[in-house]
């Protein structure tokens, strides 16, 4: 049995008196591609924010590769090998594409807070950044300030920054949001390429993406997971169809 890359146990989150996440248990296996779907307002982004420690959990525990990471700060979780992307591109807008990605590799290469290394001379950082830029298809825009990029380019950069650190567990928050059909296809190919051999958890609305990419799917409704399984199993589960997919999906 493959080990659990990510394990959530009875995770709950309340904002004031409103409970958004109401007891989520989730196991994501190593090298698995796991999608989380659900209707709007189900709490998918909140769940991501909890896993990546953007918000603290109200109760419950989160384990990363067997280690309890509940209550850690985001940068601590990042250093332990979990990286996430954002639904709204969260990039360094005044820095070039190259610098954006290079910043994301620095910690994993061990440079930490060094002010004695000449950054432009660090071959390993530059090479790794360039390889990632090529993987995300932005080589021609290497020197462009990130704020000037097009929407799709920024989404690609967003993914680039996320995988740059070499984390084994990648969280992608709606990577194809706002994209046209062809852009979505490119994005899916990109995601498949760059997450090869890694554990991927993603939130997605586009069903074609989900069913094309995911090994397993969890369905989140009103802060609870009502079903987990392979795409085929999920398609059959009546509770899911009722809660979320509706009749249109029955034909997909």
């Amino acid at each position: 049995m493959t080990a659990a890359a990510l394990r959530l146990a009875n995770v709950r989150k309340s904002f004031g008196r409103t409970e958004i996440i109401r007891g989520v248990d989730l196991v994501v296996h190593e090298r698995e591609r796991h999608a989380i779907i659900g209707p709007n307002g189900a709490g998918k982004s909140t769940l991501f924010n909890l896993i990546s420690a953007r918000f603290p959990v109200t109760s419950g525990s989160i384990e990363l590769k067997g280690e309890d990471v509940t209550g850690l700060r985001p940068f601590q979780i990042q250093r332990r090998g979990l990286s996430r992307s954002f639904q709204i591109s969260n990039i360094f807008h005044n820095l070039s594409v190259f610098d954006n990605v290079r910043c994301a590799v620095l910690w994993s290469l061990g440079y930490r807070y060094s002010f004695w290394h000449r950054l432009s001379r660090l071959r390993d950082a530059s090479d790794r950044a360039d390889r990632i830029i090529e993987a995300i298809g932005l080589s021609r825009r290497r020197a462009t300030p990130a704020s000037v990029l097009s929407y799709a380019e920024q989404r690609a950069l967003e993914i680039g920054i996320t995988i740059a650190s070499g984390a084994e567990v990648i969280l992608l928050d709606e990577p194809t949001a706002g994209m046209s059909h062809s852009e979505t296809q490119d994005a899916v190919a990109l995601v498949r390429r760059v997450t090869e051999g890694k554990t991927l958890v993603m939130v997605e609305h586009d069903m074609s993406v989900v069913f094309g990419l995911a090994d397993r799917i969890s369905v989140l409704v009103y802060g609870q997971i009502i079903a987990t399984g392979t795409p085929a199993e999920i398609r059959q589960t009546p509770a899911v169809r009722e809660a979320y997919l509706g009749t249109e999906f029955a034909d997909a």
Partner: protein
Amino acid sequence: MKTLFSRSRLLVLAAYLAVIVIAPLLSPKGYWLSLLCQIGISTVFALSFNMLLGQTGLLSFGHAVYFGLGAFATIHFLRAMHEHSFSFPVTLLPLAGGAAGLLFGIALGYVTTRRAGTTFAMISLGIGEMVAASSLMFPGLFGGEAGLSSNRMTSPGWFGITYGSQLQMYYLIAGWAFLCILGMFALTDTPLGRMANAVRDNPERAEFVGYDPQWVRYLMVVLAGFFAGVAGGLTALNYEIVTAETLSASTSGIVIMMAFVGGIGHFAGPIVGAALITVLQIVVASVTEAWPFYFGILFTVLVLYAPGGIAGIVAEHKRLYDAGQLGRVLQQYLLGLVPFALCCLGIVTLVEMAYVLANSSEPGNAPLHVFGVTLNAARPLGWAPPVIAVVVGGFLLRLVARRMASRGETVVTSLLQRQA
């Protein structure tokens, strides 16, 4: 990709070095050398400030603390040298200031970087006030109202240099300034330096690539404190006296102006700003009492219309030049030149008249001479010409601006939009 010290950069450095070396010889007057010394000190101070603002996005209203404490540390060291008769190369004395700046950066920086952004600005103000207020409570350490003084001439050092002459002092300042500029520039090309930029742009994302933004900020405060302390050491040696003014809120305010007017978005911006503000301060102050007011106006207008400062304006015009648009822009400037000059003249006259009126001892007569005409500020009629100048000038200026905008002359508007 440009390496840190590419050929064009080395050329600039060499030119700068040449300028520094030759500058004192350009004028025999005593005030020229003093001016250059002050510019050198301010340059290091302003650059250290911009490590925080331009590079890390931290607006500090209390940066004079590190400058002042560095100055006091240096003067204490110097006094100790005289009192206890031990020798130490005066040339290296600014390091004492730097060390003090570093240590206080470590101590105070921890408190100030607990929060970021606007809160940091307020906290830095509070800490600045606290240190300034404390300085009057410990006369032994800070010399009370009179400050502390000493003599930078100790036993002859290397090559018989005693720093007795202002010229020798100038070269000491110039040398240290050059080294500090190199050091601070080199810092921009380090992992910490680049992550400081990242934290400035998006602290949340910086956290999600594995960096603790608070630690990045803290280290930058410590390093900036070091360089500010060196500047403080230089000022202690230059004037041989340090008072509480050195760490006051107004010193913190002036360095903000220097960096901002020069341009916080470019490394060389504060260098320009320090020179300009120092010159203005000394030159304008000798001509009119209203110089702080003009400073305030200049600063506020820049914030609203050119937040990239002078360096930003130069960069923008370089872009225009590259795009072949510079000629058109210059034409527009020419068109607006006369109304602008009229407006400025009017404002200056108004301000000067107000000062003259406030300071006049004779009731009913407060004369101001401008362009051979004497205006009486005590009489309402005397105010008419400048008011008319401002109104007419301002009206024409708006007319020109509107006309340019309506004709699709969007260059100036793009200038306003692509700032900072």
